[in-house]
Protein backbone atom coordinates (compact mmCIF):
# COMPACT_ATOMS: atom_id res chain seq x y z
CA UNK A 1 0.00 0.00 0.00
CA UNK A 2 1.49 3.33 -1.07
CA UNK A 3 1.27 5.87 1.73
CA UNK A 4 0.90 9.27 0.13
CA UNK A 5 -1.26 11.06 2.68
CA UNK A 6 -2.19 11.16 6.34
CA UNK A 7 -5.34 9.11 5.89
CA UNK A 8 -3.49 6.20 4.34
CA UNK A 9 -0.85 6.39 7.09
CA UNK A 10 -3.52 6.47 9.80
CA UNK A 11 -5.30 3.53 8.20
CA UNK A 12 -2.08 1.51 8.12
CA UNK A 13 -1.40 2.41 11.77
CA UNK A 14 -4.89 1.25 12.76
CA UNK A 15 -4.37 -1.96 10.77
CA UNK A 16 -1.13 -2.61 12.66
CA UNK A 17 -2.91 -2.19 16.00
CA UNK A 18 -5.72 -4.50 14.94
CA UNK A 19 -3.19 -7.02 13.63
CA UNK A 20 -1.34 -7.04 16.98
CA UNK A 21 -4.59 -7.47 18.94
CA UNK A 22 -5.78 -10.33 16.70
CA UNK A 23 -2.35 -11.98 16.85
CA UNK A 24 -2.52 -11.93 20.67
CA UNK A 25 -5.95 -13.58 20.58
CA UNK A 26 -4.82 -16.27 18.15
CA UNK A 27 -1.78 -17.00 20.31
CA UNK A 28 -3.93 -17.16 23.44
CA UNK A 29 -6.29 -19.62 21.69
CA UNK A 30 -3.20 -21.59 20.48
CA UNK A 31 -4.27 -21.26 16.85
CA UNK A 32 -0.97 -19.68 15.80
CA UNK A 33 2.45 -19.38 17.43
CA UNK A 34 5.18 -17.19 15.94
CA UNK A 35 8.78 -17.96 16.77
CA UNK A 36 10.90 -15.23 18.42
CA UNK A 37 12.72 -14.36 15.19
CA UNK A 38 9.50 -13.81 13.28
CA UNK A 39 8.00 -11.83 16.15
CA UNK A 40 11.09 -9.61 16.39
CA UNK A 41 11.15 -9.01 12.63
CA UNK A 42 7.47 -8.00 12.53
CA UNK A 43 7.88 -5.77 15.60
CA UNK A 44 10.98 -4.05 14.19
CA UNK A 45 9.32 -3.46 10.82
CA UNK A 46 6.24 -2.01 12.48
CA UNK A 47 8.26 0.26 14.74
CA UNK A 48 10.18 1.72 11.80
CA UNK A 49 6.95 2.24 9.90
CA UNK A 50 5.17 3.88 12.84
CA UNK A 51 8.11 6.16 13.54
CA UNK A 52 8.15 7.29 9.91
CA UNK A 53 4.40 7.92 9.98
CA UNK A 54 4.67 9.90 13.20
CA UNK A 55 7.44 12.02 11.72
CA UNK A 56 5.84 12.63 8.31
CA UNK A 57 2.12 12.63 9.06
CA UNK A 58 1.69 13.09 12.85
CA UNK A 59 -0.65 10.10 13.08
CA UNK A 60 -2.68 9.05 16.14
CA UNK A 61 -1.03 5.99 17.60
CA UNK A 62 -3.98 4.96 19.80
CA UNK A 63 -7.63 5.71 20.62
CA UNK A 64 -6.67 8.28 23.25
CA UNK A 65 -4.53 10.17 20.75
CA UNK A 66 -7.38 9.99 18.24
CA UNK A 67 -9.80 11.61 20.66
CA UNK A 68 -7.32 14.35 21.37
CA UNK A 69 -6.87 14.89 17.63
CA UNK A 70 -10.59 15.41 17.23
CA UNK A 71 -10.52 17.94 20.04
CA UNK A 72 -7.58 19.70 18.41
CA UNK A 73 -9.45 19.90 15.10
CA UNK A 74 -12.48 21.46 16.78
CA UNK A 75 -10.28 23.88 18.71
CA UNK A 76 -8.42 24.75 15.51
CA UNK A 77 -11.66 25.55 13.68
CA UNK A 78 -13.15 27.62 16.52
CA UNK A 79 -9.85 29.41 17.01
CA UNK A 80 -9.66 30.25 13.31
CA UNK A 81 -13.24 31.57 13.26
CA UNK A 82 -12.60 33.70 16.35
CA UNK A 83 -9.29 35.05 15.03
CA UNK A 84 -10.86 35.89 11.65
CA UNK A 85 -13.70 37.77 13.39
CA UNK A 86 -11.15 39.53 15.57
CA UNK A 87 -9.17 40.68 12.51
CA UNK A 88 -12.34 41.99 10.91
CA UNK A 89 -13.51 43.95 13.96
CA UNK A 90 -9.99 45.20 14.67
CA UNK A 91 -9.83 46.76 11.24
CA UNK A 92 -13.43 48.02 11.60
CA UNK A 93 -12.51 49.72 14.88
CA UNK A 94 -9.51 51.69 13.59
CA UNK A 95 -9.66 52.03 9.81
CA UNK A 96 -11.59 55.29 9.86
CA UNK A 97 -8.63 57.04 11.49
CA UNK A 98 -6.18 56.06 8.74
CA UNK A 99 -5.58 57.97 5.54
CA UNK A 100 -6.51 56.18 2.34
CA UNK A 101 -2.94 55.08 1.45
CA UNK A 102 -2.47 53.67 4.95
CA UNK A 103 -5.79 51.82 4.72
CA UNK A 104 -4.81 50.23 1.41
CA UNK A 105 -1.33 49.35 2.65
CA UNK A 106 -2.73 47.79 5.82
CA UNK A 107 -5.18 45.64 3.89
CA UNK A 108 -2.57 44.38 1.42
CA UNK A 109 0.00 43.79 4.16
CA UNK A 110 -2.49 41.86 6.32
CA UNK A 111 -3.47 39.57 3.45
CA UNK A 112 0.11 38.98 2.31
CA UNK A 113 1.65 38.64 5.76
CA UNK A 114 -0.91 36.12 7.03
CA UNK A 115 -0.39 34.13 3.84
CA UNK A 116 3.39 34.03 4.32
CA UNK A 117 3.06 33.26 8.03
CA UNK A 118 0.81 30.30 7.16
CA UNK A 119 3.61 28.66 5.20
CA UNK A 120 6.19 29.51 7.84
CA UNK A 121 4.02 27.80 10.46
CA UNK A 122 3.55 24.82 8.17
CA UNK A 123 7.32 24.50 7.94
CA UNK A 124 7.66 24.55 11.76
CA UNK A 125 4.58 22.56 12.81
CA UNK A 126 4.40 18.90 11.78
CA UNK A 127 0.89 18.38 13.18
CA UNK A 128 -0.64 20.84 10.71
CA UNK A 129 -3.27 22.17 13.11
CA UNK A 130 -1.64 25.56 13.61
CA UNK A 131 -0.94 25.92 9.91
CA UNK A 132 -4.60 25.20 9.13
CA UNK A 133 -5.70 27.78 11.65
CA UNK A 134 -3.35 30.30 10.07
CA UNK A 135 -4.66 29.41 6.59
CA UNK A 136 -8.23 30.20 7.60
CA UNK A 137 -7.13 33.55 9.01
CA UNK A 138 -5.16 34.28 5.81
CA UNK A 139 -8.25 33.58 3.71
CA UNK A 140 -10.38 35.82 5.95
CA UNK A 141 -7.80 38.62 5.60
CA UNK A 142 -7.90 38.32 1.81
CA UNK A 143 -11.69 38.51 1.75
CA UNK A 144 -11.51 41.53 4.07
CA UNK A 145 -8.86 43.06 1.78
CA UNK A 146 -11.15 43.05 -1.23
CA UNK A 147 -14.38 43.95 0.58
CA UNK A 148 -12.82 46.96 2.29
CA UNK A 149 -11.07 48.08 -0.89
CA UNK A 150 -14.49 48.12 -2.52
CA UNK A 151 -15.91 50.20 0.34
CA UNK A 152 -13.02 52.70 0.43
CA UNK A 153 -13.18 53.46 -3.29
CA UNK A 154 -16.94 52.94 -3.80
CA UNK A 155 -16.29 50.20 -6.35
CA UNK A 156 -19.36 48.65 -7.97
CA UNK A 157 -19.93 45.17 -6.46
CA UNK A 158 -18.93 42.50 -8.96
CA UNK A 159 -19.15 38.72 -9.13
CA UNK A 160 -15.55 38.73 -10.41
CA UNK A 161 -14.38 39.12 -6.79
CA UNK A 162 -15.49 35.51 -6.19
CA UNK A 163 -12.81 34.19 -8.56
CA UNK A 164 -9.68 35.30 -6.65
CA UNK A 165 -11.35 34.25 -3.39
CA UNK A 166 -11.93 30.80 -4.86
CA UNK A 167 -8.38 30.71 -6.23
CA UNK A 168 -6.76 31.53 -2.87
CA UNK A 169 -9.05 29.16 -0.95
CA UNK A 170 -8.24 26.30 -3.33
CA UNK A 171 -4.51 27.11 -3.29
CA UNK A 172 -4.44 26.95 0.51
CA UNK A 173 -6.72 23.89 0.59
CA UNK A 174 -4.43 21.86 -1.67
CA UNK A 175 -1.24 23.13 -0.04
CA UNK A 176 -2.39 22.32 3.50
CA UNK A 177 -4.81 19.47 2.89
CA UNK A 178 -7.62 21.55 4.37
CA UNK A 179 -11.11 20.47 3.34
CA UNK A 180 -12.85 23.40 5.01
CA UNK A 181 -11.08 25.82 2.67
CA UNK A 182 -11.80 23.47 -0.22
CA UNK A 183 -15.51 23.82 0.57
CA UNK A 184 -15.11 27.62 0.82
CA UNK A 185 -13.35 27.70 -2.55
CA UNK A 186 -15.95 25.50 -4.18
CA UNK A 187 -18.77 27.66 -2.82
CA UNK A 188 -17.11 30.76 -4.28
CA UNK A 189 -16.78 28.98 -7.63
CA UNK A 190 -20.38 27.80 -7.56
CA UNK A 191 -21.57 31.30 -6.71
CA UNK A 192 -19.50 32.81 -9.52
CA UNK A 193 -20.81 30.37 -12.12
CA UNK A 194 -24.39 30.81 -10.86
CA UNK A 195 -24.05 34.59 -11.02
CA UNK A 196 -22.65 34.44 -14.58
CA UNK A 197 -25.43 32.09 -15.71
CA UNK A 198 -27.92 34.50 -14.16
CA UNK A 199 -26.50 37.57 -15.91
CA UNK A 200 -26.90 35.81 -19.28
CA UNK A 201 -30.65 36.02 -18.71
CA UNK A 202 -30.29 39.75 -18.04
CA UNK A 203 -30.65 39.78 -14.29
CA UNK A 204 -28.37 41.62 -11.86
CA UNK A 205 -25.69 39.25 -10.62
CA UNK A 206 -26.46 39.64 -6.91
CA UNK A 207 -29.94 38.22 -7.53
CA UNK A 208 -28.57 34.84 -8.66
CA UNK A 209 -30.02 33.18 -5.57
CA UNK A 210 -33.53 34.14 -6.66
CA UNK A 211 -33.32 31.61 -9.50
CA UNK A 212 -32.03 28.35 -7.96
CA UNK A 213 -31.61 26.79 -11.41
CA UNK A 214 -28.50 28.98 -11.79
CA UNK A 215 -26.68 26.51 -9.54
CA UNK A 216 -27.26 23.45 -11.74
CA UNK A 217 -24.42 23.91 -14.30
CA UNK A 218 -21.79 24.43 -11.59
CA UNK A 219 -23.06 21.46 -9.60
CA UNK A 220 -22.84 19.12 -12.59
CA UNK A 221 -19.36 20.39 -13.49
CA UNK A 222 -18.08 19.92 -9.93
CA UNK A 223 -19.37 16.35 -9.78
CA UNK A 224 -17.31 15.47 -12.82
CA UNK A 225 -14.03 17.04 -11.57
CA UNK A 226 -12.88 14.08 -9.41
CA UNK A 227 -13.45 11.79 -12.42
CA UNK A 228 -11.14 13.88 -14.56
CA UNK A 229 -8.39 14.72 -12.02
CA UNK A 230 -6.77 12.21 -9.70
CA UNK A 231 -7.22 13.28 -6.07
CA UNK A 232 -5.78 10.24 -4.31
CA UNK A 233 -2.96 12.33 -2.88
CA UNK A 234 -5.48 14.56 -1.12
CA UNK A 235 -7.46 12.54 1.39
CA UNK A 236 -11.16 13.31 1.35
CA UNK A 237 -11.02 15.85 -1.49
CA UNK A 238 -12.82 13.74 -4.09
CA UNK A 239 -15.73 12.96 -1.73
CA UNK A 240 -15.87 16.66 -0.80
CA UNK A 241 -16.23 17.61 -4.45
CA UNK A 242 -19.04 15.10 -4.90
CA UNK A 243 -20.89 16.02 -1.72
CA UNK A 244 -20.75 19.75 -2.48
CA UNK A 245 -21.90 19.05 -6.05
CA UNK A 246 -24.84 16.94 -4.88
CA UNK A 247 -25.91 19.57 -2.37
CA UNK A 248 -25.57 22.33 -4.98
CA UNK A 249 -27.77 20.31 -7.32
CA UNK A 250 -30.45 18.95 -5.03
CA UNK A 251 -30.92 21.68 -2.43
CA UNK A 252 -31.99 24.20 -5.10
CA UNK A 253 -34.18 21.46 -6.53
CA UNK A 254 -35.75 20.96 -3.10
CA UNK A 255 -36.37 24.69 -2.90
CA UNK A 256 -38.04 24.72 -6.33
CA UNK A 257 -40.11 21.67 -5.38
CA UNK A 258 -41.75 23.90 -2.78
CA UNK A 259 -41.40 27.34 -4.43
CA UNK A 260 -42.23 27.19 -8.10
CA UNK A 261 -42.16 30.98 -8.33
CA UNK A 262 -38.36 30.88 -8.31
CA UNK A 263 -38.06 28.92 -11.55
CA UNK A 264 -37.14 30.12 -15.04
CA UNK A 265 -39.63 27.64 -16.52
CA UNK A 266 -42.61 29.27 -18.28
CA UNK A 267 -45.09 27.01 -16.46
CA UNK A 268 -47.55 27.54 -13.66
CA UNK A 269 -46.09 27.42 -10.16
CA UNK A 270 -47.90 24.18 -9.28
CA UNK A 271 -46.66 22.37 -12.39
CA UNK A 272 -43.12 23.61 -11.77
CA UNK A 273 -43.20 22.36 -8.18
CA UNK A 274 -44.53 18.95 -9.26
CA UNK A 275 -41.86 18.70 -11.94
CA UNK A 276 -39.06 19.40 -9.48
CA UNK A 277 -40.51 17.03 -6.90
CA UNK A 278 -40.43 14.20 -9.44
CA UNK A 279 -36.97 15.25 -10.64
CA UNK A 280 -35.73 15.34 -7.06
CA UNK A 281 -36.96 11.83 -6.29
CA UNK A 282 -35.70 10.37 -9.54
CA UNK A 283 -32.42 12.28 -9.36
CA UNK A 284 -31.56 11.21 -5.81
CA UNK A 285 -32.54 7.62 -6.59
CA UNK A 286 -30.26 7.64 -9.63
CA UNK A 287 -27.48 9.12 -7.51
CA UNK A 288 -27.92 6.33 -4.95
CA UNK A 289 -27.76 3.74 -7.72
CA UNK A 290 -24.62 5.39 -9.15
CA UNK A 291 -22.97 5.54 -5.74
CA UNK A 292 -23.72 1.88 -5.06
CA UNK A 293 -22.46 0.84 -8.47
CA UNK A 294 -19.21 2.82 -8.18
CA UNK A 295 -18.80 2.03 -4.46
CA UNK A 296 -18.82 5.70 -3.52
CA UNK A 297 -20.06 5.82 0.07
CA UNK A 298 -20.13 9.62 0.10
CA UNK A 299 -22.51 9.69 -2.87
CA UNK A 300 -24.76 7.03 -1.37
CA UNK A 301 -24.93 8.66 2.07
CA UNK A 302 -25.59 12.14 0.73
CA UNK A 303 -28.15 10.95 -1.81
CA UNK A 304 -29.99 8.83 0.76
CA UNK A 305 -30.18 11.84 3.08
CA UNK A 306 -31.50 14.06 0.30
CA UNK A 307 -33.98 11.40 -0.81
CA UNK A 308 -35.32 11.17 2.73
CA UNK A 309 -35.64 14.97 2.93
CA UNK A 310 -37.55 15.04 -0.37
CA UNK A 311 -39.75 12.21 0.87
CA UNK A 312 -40.47 13.79 4.24
CA UNK A 313 -41.29 17.20 2.77
CA UNK A 314 -43.66 15.53 0.32
CA UNK A 315 -45.29 13.50 3.06
CA UNK A 316 -45.70 16.68 5.07
CA UNK A 317 -47.44 18.29 2.08
CA UNK A 318 -49.77 15.36 1.58
CA UNK A 319 -50.66 14.31 5.10
CA UNK A 320 -49.86 16.91 7.77
CA UNK A 321 -53.32 18.50 7.49
CA UNK A 322 -55.17 15.28 6.70
CA UNK A 323 -53.85 12.91 9.37
CA UNK A 324 -53.89 13.07 13.13
CA UNK A 325 -50.39 13.95 14.29
CA UNK A 326 -49.66 10.59 15.92
CA UNK A 327 -50.51 8.84 12.66
CA UNK A 328 -48.37 11.23 10.65
CA UNK A 329 -45.28 10.63 12.77
CA UNK A 330 -46.03 6.89 12.85
CA UNK A 331 -46.01 6.93 9.03
CA UNK A 332 -42.68 8.79 9.04
CA UNK A 333 -41.23 6.28 11.45
CA UNK A 334 -42.43 3.28 9.44
CA UNK A 335 -40.97 4.84 6.29
CA UNK A 336 -37.62 5.15 8.08
CA UNK A 337 -37.83 1.47 9.07
CA UNK A 338 -38.55 0.52 5.46
CA UNK A 339 -35.53 2.49 4.31
CA UNK A 340 -33.42 0.70 6.93
CA UNK A 341 -34.50 -2.67 5.50
CA UNK A 342 -33.59 -1.55 2.00
CA UNK A 343 -30.17 -0.24 3.04
CA UNK A 344 -29.48 -3.35 5.09
CA UNK A 345 -30.25 -5.47 2.06
CA UNK A 346 -27.91 -3.34 -0.04
CA UNK A 347 -25.16 -3.85 2.51
CA UNK A 348 -25.78 -7.57 2.67
CA UNK A 349 -25.31 -7.92 -1.09
CA UNK A 350 -21.85 -6.34 -0.55
CA UNK A 351 -22.69 -3.62 -3.03
CA UNK A 352 -22.38 -0.99 -0.25
CA UNK A 353 -18.75 -1.91 0.40
CA UNK A 354 -15.60 0.00 1.29
CA UNK A 355 -15.18 3.30 -0.54
CA UNK A 356 -13.59 2.57 -3.86
CA UNK A 357 -11.21 5.53 -3.72
CA UNK A 358 -10.45 5.03 -0.02
CA UNK A 359 -11.01 8.70 0.51
CA UNK A 360 -13.46 8.53 3.40
CA UNK A 361 -13.97 11.80 5.27
CA UNK A 362 -12.21 12.23 8.57
Amino acid sequence: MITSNRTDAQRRTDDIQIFNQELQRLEAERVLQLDPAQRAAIHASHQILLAAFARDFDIDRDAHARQLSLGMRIASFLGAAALAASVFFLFYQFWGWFTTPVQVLTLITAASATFVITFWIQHKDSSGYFAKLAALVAFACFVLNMVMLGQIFNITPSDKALLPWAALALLLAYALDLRLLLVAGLMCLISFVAARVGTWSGMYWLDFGERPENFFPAAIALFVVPQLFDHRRFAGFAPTFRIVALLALFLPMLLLANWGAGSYLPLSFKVTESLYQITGFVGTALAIWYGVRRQLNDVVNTSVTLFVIFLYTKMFDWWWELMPKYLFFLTLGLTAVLLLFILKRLRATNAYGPNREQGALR
Partner: protein
Amino acid sequence: MSGRTMKWFRKRTLITGLLLIMGVNIFALVGVFYNRGGIPESALRLSERELVGPYIWGSHSENSGLSLKLMWRVLRPEPTEKEKNSEDWYRYGRYSGYQGEADWLNQEKLIALGFNDGEMTFQPYGRSRFGRQLPHDVLLVLELDGAAYQAALAQAIKYNRGTTGDLKLLADEQTRNSRLFVIDAALNSDASITALRMRYPDRSRYAIVRGQIRPTWCCADTGNKISGMVSKINVDNLHVPLAMRGAFDDAKTSFEESEKTRQAHYEAVVAFGRRLEPWITATTRK
Protein backbone atom coordinates in the same frame (compact mmCIF):
# COMPACT_ATOMS: atom_id res chain seq x y z
CA MET B 1 6.10 13.22 -1.06
CA SER B 2 9.85 13.60 -0.43
CA GLY B 3 11.18 16.51 1.65
CA ARG B 4 12.76 18.21 -1.34
CA THR B 5 9.59 17.95 -3.39
CA MET B 6 7.57 19.31 -0.48
CA LYS B 7 9.92 22.30 -0.20
CA TRP B 8 9.67 23.01 -3.92
CA PHE B 9 5.86 22.69 -3.87
CA ARG B 10 5.60 24.96 -0.83
CA LYS B 11 7.82 27.61 -2.44
CA ARG B 12 5.84 27.55 -5.67
CA THR B 13 2.51 27.80 -3.80
CA LEU B 14 3.82 30.70 -1.73
CA ILE B 15 4.92 32.64 -4.81
CA THR B 16 1.66 31.89 -6.64
CA GLY B 17 -0.42 33.05 -3.68
CA LEU B 18 1.55 36.28 -3.23
CA LEU B 19 1.27 37.02 -6.94
CA LEU B 20 -2.48 36.42 -6.72
CA ILE B 21 -2.91 38.78 -3.75
CA MET B 22 -0.75 41.50 -5.28
CA GLY B 23 -2.23 41.06 -8.73
CA VAL B 24 -5.81 41.39 -7.56
CA ASN B 25 -5.04 44.50 -5.53
CA ILE B 26 -3.16 46.11 -8.41
CA PHE B 27 -6.04 45.28 -10.75
CA ALA B 28 -8.56 46.89 -8.39
CA LEU B 29 -6.42 50.00 -7.87
CA VAL B 30 -5.81 50.42 -11.60
CA GLY B 31 -9.59 50.35 -12.04
CA VAL B 32 -9.94 53.07 -9.40
CA PHE B 33 -7.34 55.26 -11.10
CA TYR B 34 -9.04 54.72 -14.44
CA ASN B 35 -12.43 55.72 -12.99
CA ARG B 36 -11.04 58.85 -11.34
CA GLY B 37 -8.72 59.84 -14.17
CA GLY B 38 -9.40 62.76 -16.46
CA ILE B 39 -12.48 64.97 -16.20
CA PRO B 40 -15.33 63.42 -14.19
CA GLU B 41 -18.34 62.30 -16.18
CA SER B 42 -20.43 64.47 -13.85
CA ALA B 43 -20.09 66.32 -10.54
CA LEU B 44 -23.04 67.20 -8.31
CA ARG B 45 -22.98 69.56 -5.34
CA LEU B 46 -25.08 67.74 -2.76
CA SER B 47 -26.20 68.82 0.68
CA GLU B 48 -27.23 67.03 3.87
CA ARG B 49 -30.60 66.54 2.15
CA GLU B 50 -29.04 64.20 -0.41
CA LEU B 51 -26.18 62.74 1.62
CA VAL B 52 -27.27 61.25 4.90
CA GLY B 53 -25.12 59.88 7.69
CA PRO B 54 -25.57 56.33 8.95
CA TYR B 55 -27.72 55.38 11.89
CA ILE B 56 -25.62 53.88 14.65
CA TRP B 57 -26.84 50.56 15.98
CA GLY B 58 -25.30 47.34 17.21
CA SER B 59 -21.77 46.72 15.98
CA HIS B 60 -21.93 49.85 13.80
CA SER B 61 -21.02 51.84 16.93
CA GLU B 62 -17.54 50.29 16.69
CA ASN B 63 -17.09 51.26 13.05
CA SER B 64 -14.67 54.17 12.90
CA GLY B 65 -15.22 54.64 9.17
CA LEU B 66 -17.84 56.99 7.79
CA SER B 67 -20.05 56.40 4.77
CA LEU B 68 -22.83 58.68 3.59
CA LYS B 69 -25.92 57.34 1.89
CA LEU B 70 -27.11 58.88 -1.34
CA MET B 71 -30.80 59.67 -0.90
CA TRP B 72 -32.47 59.49 -4.29
CA ARG B 73 -36.16 59.57 -5.09
CA VAL B 74 -38.58 58.81 -7.87
CA LEU B 75 -41.42 61.23 -8.64
CA ARG B 76 -44.79 59.68 -7.91
CA PRO B 77 -47.41 60.04 -10.62
CA GLU B 78 -50.37 62.37 -10.20
CA PRO B 79 -53.08 60.73 -8.08
CA THR B 80 -56.16 59.19 -9.62
CA GLU B 81 -59.59 60.58 -8.72
CA LYS B 82 -60.07 57.75 -6.26
CA GLU B 83 -56.74 58.44 -4.56
CA LYS B 84 -57.53 62.14 -4.22
CA ASN B 85 -60.54 61.17 -2.14
CA SER B 86 -58.62 58.67 -0.03
CA GLU B 87 -57.18 59.58 3.36
CA ASP B 88 -54.65 56.73 2.95
CA TRP B 89 -53.20 58.41 -0.11
CA TYR B 90 -52.80 61.68 1.78
CA ARG B 91 -51.10 59.88 4.63
CA TYR B 92 -48.97 57.30 2.86
CA GLY B 93 -49.11 57.70 -0.89
CA ARG B 94 -48.04 61.29 -1.49
CA TYR B 95 -44.37 61.23 -0.66
CA SER B 96 -42.21 60.66 -3.73
CA GLY B 97 -39.85 58.31 -2.07
CA TYR B 98 -37.03 55.88 -2.36
CA GLN B 99 -37.52 52.93 -4.72
CA GLY B 100 -40.67 54.27 -6.23
CA GLU B 101 -42.73 53.54 -9.28
CA ALA B 102 -42.06 55.96 -12.08
CA ASP B 103 -44.60 57.37 -14.50
CA TRP B 104 -41.99 57.42 -17.26
CA LEU B 105 -41.25 53.70 -16.79
CA ASN B 106 -44.16 52.47 -18.87
CA GLN B 107 -44.47 49.23 -20.80
CA GLU B 108 -42.76 50.55 -23.94
CA LYS B 109 -39.86 51.85 -21.92
CA LEU B 110 -39.47 48.53 -20.11
CA ILE B 111 -39.30 46.66 -23.42
CA ALA B 112 -36.71 49.17 -24.65
CA LEU B 113 -34.72 48.40 -21.49
CA GLY B 114 -34.48 44.73 -22.34
CA PHE B 115 -37.52 43.19 -20.69
CA ASN B 116 -39.14 40.50 -22.80
CA ASP B 117 -42.24 41.65 -24.67
CA GLY B 118 -43.83 38.28 -23.97
CA GLU B 119 -43.36 38.81 -20.24
CA MET B 120 -45.26 42.11 -20.25
CA THR B 121 -48.52 40.33 -19.61
CA PHE B 122 -50.42 38.83 -16.76
CA GLN B 123 -51.58 35.87 -18.82
CA PRO B 124 -51.61 32.96 -18.37
CA TYR B 125 -50.39 32.94 -14.77
CA GLY B 126 -51.59 36.23 -13.48
CA ARG B 127 -49.86 38.88 -11.49
CA SER B 128 -47.85 36.55 -9.27
CA ARG B 129 -45.67 35.28 -12.14
CA PHE B 130 -45.35 38.78 -13.59
CA GLY B 131 -44.24 40.16 -10.26
CA ARG B 132 -41.50 37.55 -9.93
CA GLN B 133 -39.48 38.96 -12.80
CA LEU B 134 -36.03 39.94 -11.68
CA PRO B 135 -34.52 43.44 -11.94
CA HIS B 136 -32.34 44.36 -14.91
CA ASP B 137 -29.09 46.27 -14.62
CA VAL B 138 -29.47 49.58 -16.48
CA LEU B 139 -28.18 53.14 -16.65
CA LEU B 140 -30.13 55.69 -14.61
CA VAL B 141 -30.12 59.47 -14.82
CA LEU B 142 -30.08 61.40 -11.54
CA GLU B 143 -31.34 64.96 -11.64
CA LEU B 144 -30.47 67.41 -8.88
CA ASP B 145 -32.91 70.21 -8.02
CA GLY B 146 -34.54 70.09 -11.41
CA ALA B 147 -37.99 69.66 -12.94
CA ALA B 148 -38.75 66.48 -10.97
CA TYR B 149 -38.07 68.17 -7.62
CA GLN B 150 -40.11 71.20 -8.65
CA ALA B 151 -42.98 68.87 -9.57
CA ALA B 152 -42.77 67.14 -6.17
CA LEU B 153 -42.81 70.55 -4.48
CA ALA B 154 -45.77 71.64 -6.62
CA GLN B 155 -47.64 68.46 -5.62
CA ALA B 156 -47.02 69.17 -1.94
CA ILE B 157 -48.40 72.71 -2.39
CA LYS B 158 -51.34 71.60 -4.54
CA TYR B 159 -52.56 68.91 -2.14
CA ASN B 160 -51.94 70.84 1.06
CA ARG B 161 -55.22 70.87 2.94
CA GLY B 162 -53.80 72.82 5.86
CA THR B 163 -53.70 69.80 8.18
CA THR B 164 -50.68 69.21 10.44
CA GLY B 165 -49.52 66.32 8.31
CA ASP B 166 -49.88 68.20 5.05
CA LEU B 167 -48.03 71.23 6.43
CA LYS B 168 -45.20 69.05 7.69
CA LEU B 169 -44.94 67.32 4.31
CA LEU B 170 -44.76 70.71 2.60
CA ALA B 171 -42.12 71.98 5.04
CA ASP B 172 -40.08 68.81 4.58
CA GLU B 173 -40.32 69.10 0.82
CA GLN B 174 -39.05 72.68 0.99
CA THR B 175 -36.17 72.18 3.45
CA ARG B 176 -35.37 68.55 4.21
CA ASN B 177 -36.29 66.05 1.54
CA SER B 178 -33.77 65.07 -1.09
CA ARG B 179 -33.77 67.04 -4.34
CA LEU B 180 -32.16 64.15 -6.21
CA PHE B 181 -34.55 62.28 -8.53
CA VAL B 182 -34.16 59.40 -10.97
CA ILE B 183 -35.71 60.70 -14.20
CA ASP B 184 -34.61 58.40 -17.00
CA ALA B 185 -33.07 55.03 -17.81
CA ALA B 186 -31.28 53.35 -20.70
CA LEU B 187 -29.62 50.06 -21.57
CA ASN B 188 -26.29 49.46 -19.87
CA SER B 189 -23.83 50.27 -22.68
CA ASP B 190 -21.27 52.88 -23.72
CA ALA B 191 -23.48 54.02 -26.58
CA SER B 192 -26.32 54.65 -24.11
CA ILE B 193 -24.03 56.77 -21.91
CA THR B 194 -23.20 58.95 -24.90
CA ALA B 195 -26.86 59.21 -25.92
CA LEU B 196 -27.99 60.08 -22.39
CA ARG B 197 -25.29 62.71 -22.03
CA MET B 198 -26.42 64.34 -25.26
CA ARG B 199 -29.95 64.43 -23.89
CA TYR B 200 -28.82 65.74 -20.48
CA PRO B 201 -25.68 67.81 -21.17
CA ASP B 202 -25.49 69.69 -17.85
CA ARG B 203 -22.92 67.66 -15.91
CA SER B 204 -23.47 69.68 -12.75
CA ARG B 205 -27.15 68.82 -12.61
CA TYR B 206 -27.42 65.35 -14.20
CA ALA B 207 -25.40 62.29 -13.22
CA ILE B 208 -25.49 58.94 -15.02
CA VAL B 209 -25.19 55.93 -12.70
CA ARG B 210 -25.80 52.20 -12.81
CA GLY B 211 -28.81 50.73 -11.07
CA GLN B 212 -31.71 48.35 -11.40
CA ILE B 213 -35.31 48.49 -12.45
CA ARG B 214 -38.00 45.86 -12.31
CA PRO B 215 -41.48 45.65 -13.75
CA THR B 216 -44.43 46.03 -11.47
CA TRP B 217 -48.10 46.85 -11.76
CA CYS B 218 -50.19 49.57 -10.31
CA CYS B 219 -53.73 50.68 -9.98
CA ALA B 220 -54.88 47.55 -8.12
CA ASP B 221 -58.50 48.62 -8.40
CA THR B 222 -58.40 48.61 -12.20
CA GLY B 223 -56.01 45.69 -12.40
CA ASN B 224 -53.54 45.65 -15.14
CA LYS B 225 -51.48 48.74 -15.64
CA ILE B 226 -47.88 47.65 -16.17
CA SER B 227 -45.17 50.00 -15.03
CA GLY B 228 -41.65 49.88 -13.70
CA MET B 229 -39.93 50.53 -10.43
CA VAL B 230 -36.42 51.81 -9.81
CA SER B 231 -35.26 49.31 -7.21
CA LYS B 232 -31.64 50.19 -6.56
CA ILE B 233 -28.63 52.27 -7.46
CA ASN B 234 -25.60 49.97 -7.45
CA VAL B 235 -23.31 52.28 -5.49
CA ASP B 236 -25.22 54.54 -3.14
CA ASN B 237 -22.92 54.47 -0.12
CA LEU B 238 -20.02 56.92 -0.32
CA HIS B 239 -16.96 56.44 1.83
CA VAL B 240 -15.66 59.68 3.38
CA PRO B 241 -11.83 59.93 3.41
CA LEU B 242 -10.20 60.99 6.66
CA ALA B 243 -9.19 64.39 5.32
CA MET B 244 -12.82 65.32 4.63
CA ARG B 245 -14.51 64.05 7.74
CA GLY B 246 -14.47 67.37 9.55
CA ALA B 247 -17.50 68.61 7.64
CA PHE B 248 -19.57 65.61 8.71
CA ASP B 249 -19.00 65.51 12.45
CA ASP B 250 -22.73 65.70 13.09
CA ALA B 251 -23.65 63.23 10.37
CA LYS B 252 -23.21 60.11 12.46
CA THR B 253 -26.00 59.68 14.92
CA SER B 254 -28.30 57.24 16.58
CA PHE B 255 -31.84 56.53 15.54
CA GLU B 256 -33.10 58.56 18.48
CA GLU B 257 -31.15 61.59 17.30
CA SER B 258 -32.45 61.60 13.73
CA GLU B 259 -33.70 65.17 14.13
CA LYS B 260 -30.18 66.26 15.07
CA THR B 261 -28.85 64.67 11.87
CA ARG B 262 -31.12 66.79 9.75
CA GLN B 263 -29.91 69.95 11.44
CA ALA B 264 -26.35 69.28 10.37
CA HIS B 265 -25.51 71.46 7.38
CA TYR B 266 -22.87 70.53 4.90
CA GLU B 267 -22.22 70.31 1.21
CA ALA B 268 -20.14 67.83 -0.74
CA VAL B 269 -19.15 67.66 -4.37
CA VAL B 270 -19.67 64.11 -5.56
CA ALA B 271 -17.93 63.25 -8.82
CA PHE B 272 -18.84 60.29 -11.02
CA GLY B 273 -15.99 58.84 -13.04
CA ARG B 274 -15.49 56.90 -16.25
CA ARG B 275 -16.88 53.72 -14.69
CA LEU B 276 -19.75 55.80 -13.25
CA GLU B 277 -18.46 55.13 -9.73
CA PRO B 278 -18.74 58.08 -7.33
CA TRP B 279 -16.31 59.69 -4.92
CA ILE B 280 -16.31 62.82 -2.79
CA THR B 281 -13.94 65.49 -4.10
CA ALA B 282 -14.68 68.44 -1.81
CA THR B 283 -16.67 69.20 1.31
CA THR B 284 -17.92 72.35 3.06
CA ARG B 285 -19.46 72.74 6.44
CA LYS B 286 -22.22 75.39 6.48
